[in-house]
């Protein structure tokens, strides 16, 4: 379990670096998907398969598809690559990465003080246990999140709604009105 944990963690870090340094938007999204899958595997190794599988279904399987959708629709070609290359000049990234490196060093020293070994036991946390915790002590938070999502849904359908009289023009040619 420890090997799986560290290996997938390593892959997640590498893939995330790929997201930042990649110049092609679609490849960057692909790296992001790999990173999410690796994080899901980290969850599996930590004994939380429910969280891991939800990570794959929701983040990798649904949200990232929308990302890919948008990136493909924008039809970013060579120009976008040039622009990305321009943004990746050493002058732009050295300062922030030095600061981030300092933070990482701090985090590592703090982590090394404690004992990390016993956490990666691979004990199973079942879906039932998660559900009981969610709908027991955390019921209020779950309900609030549900309301927030409902509000978002209502807003989205309001924004995306057709105006009066727009019925005929709204159907795009690919949907075959004329046929």
């Amino acid at each position: 379990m420890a090997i799986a944990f560290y290996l997938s963690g390593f892959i997640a870090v590498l893939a995330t670096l790929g997201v930042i340094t990649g110049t092609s938007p679609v490849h960057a999204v692909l790296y992001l998907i790999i990173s999410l899958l690796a994080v899901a595997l980290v969850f599996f190794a930590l004994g939380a398969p429910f969280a891991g599988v939800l990570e794959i279904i929701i983040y990798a399987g649904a949200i990232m598809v929308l990302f890919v959708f948008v990136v493909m629709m924008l039809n970013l070609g060579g120009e976008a690559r040039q622009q990305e290359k321009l943004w990746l000049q050493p002058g732009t990234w050295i300062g922030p990465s030095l600061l981030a490196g300092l933070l990482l060093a701090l985090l590592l020293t703090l982590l090394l003080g404690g004992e990390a070994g016993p956490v990666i036991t691979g004990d199973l946390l079942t879906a039932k246990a998660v559900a009981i915790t969610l709908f027991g002590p955390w019921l209020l938070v779950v309900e609030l999140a549900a309301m927030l999502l409902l509000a978002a849904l209502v807003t989205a359908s309001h924004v995306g709604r057709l105006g009066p009289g727009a019925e005929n023009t709204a159907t795009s040619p690919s949907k075959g009105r004329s046929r």
Partner: protein
Amino acid sequence: MSWFTPQLTANLWAMTQALIILLGAVLLGAVMTIVERRLLGLWQDRYGPNRVGPFGLLQLIADMIKIFFKEDWIPPFSDRVLFVLAPGIAMASLLLAFIIIPITPGWGVADLHIGLLFFFAMAGINVYAVLFGGWASGNKYALIGAMRASAQTLSYEVFIGLAVMGVVAMTGSFNMRDIVAAQEDVWFVIPQFLGFLTFLIAGIAVTHRHPFDQPEAEQELADGYHVEYSSMKFGMYFIGEYVGMLLVSALIVTLFFGGWHGPWLPPIVWFALKTGAFLMFFVLLRASLPRPRYDRVMSFGWKVCLPLTLINLLVTGAVVLLVPG
């Protein structure tokens, strides 16, 4: 033989089982291509492929030789990495999902806690095969096909999950073996009929089989997302589709038709019979139904199937809460 411990033999046996199931799934997927063509011929009053070997049985081998030796062309205007990667995702994600299916009490690869959710995860990843394949081809038709396919798969995945939650609520577990065990007396198709109907529809839509194959519509899109693919890369998409069909059939049998349960015959025969019946049903659908318009497919999903699954889940939840035990 001191190192030949029971643990090792058990591991080896499990690995052999996994390999046999994997190969069986791929082979059955390949055989289905021919079975489907013969059955389509039968139902549409024509012959179908009947020249190679007795009853056209060797057609499969001829097709395999053909597809393996075709020129494997990667278009120069394509995105090479994604173009090669996409068919692999198509096949691998669906094959991986087979590990959760319990075939008989003794056969099956993994007995996961999260069983059913693993299938949804793999189905979610399978979207990328189409999406990346269509985009990487650098072809308008392929891109439109990929867009249609992913929009369709995303919307139908929403309620393919909701459709089986009734089953999960009645069983109280995501584990596939628990689900099969809970159907010892009554198959879930009876108390969960709405769930079954919506799962069936969504299952066909997720594998984009006819009548939900707008992403591949020949007349409008010249074959959709795999129009630029040739040779075995196309073969992988093609076999992947049949593997998906097999997977959905096996899932329907496990979730709604009692898995291996049945009188007199041994479990493996029951499982095979039921799965085979659903495979035939998929072919019959293709042989008999016309292709609906794309926007109607989408609105049918959101306006009919989604409310149905929600009502089903609501009623199931109420019944589970009201009836103790």
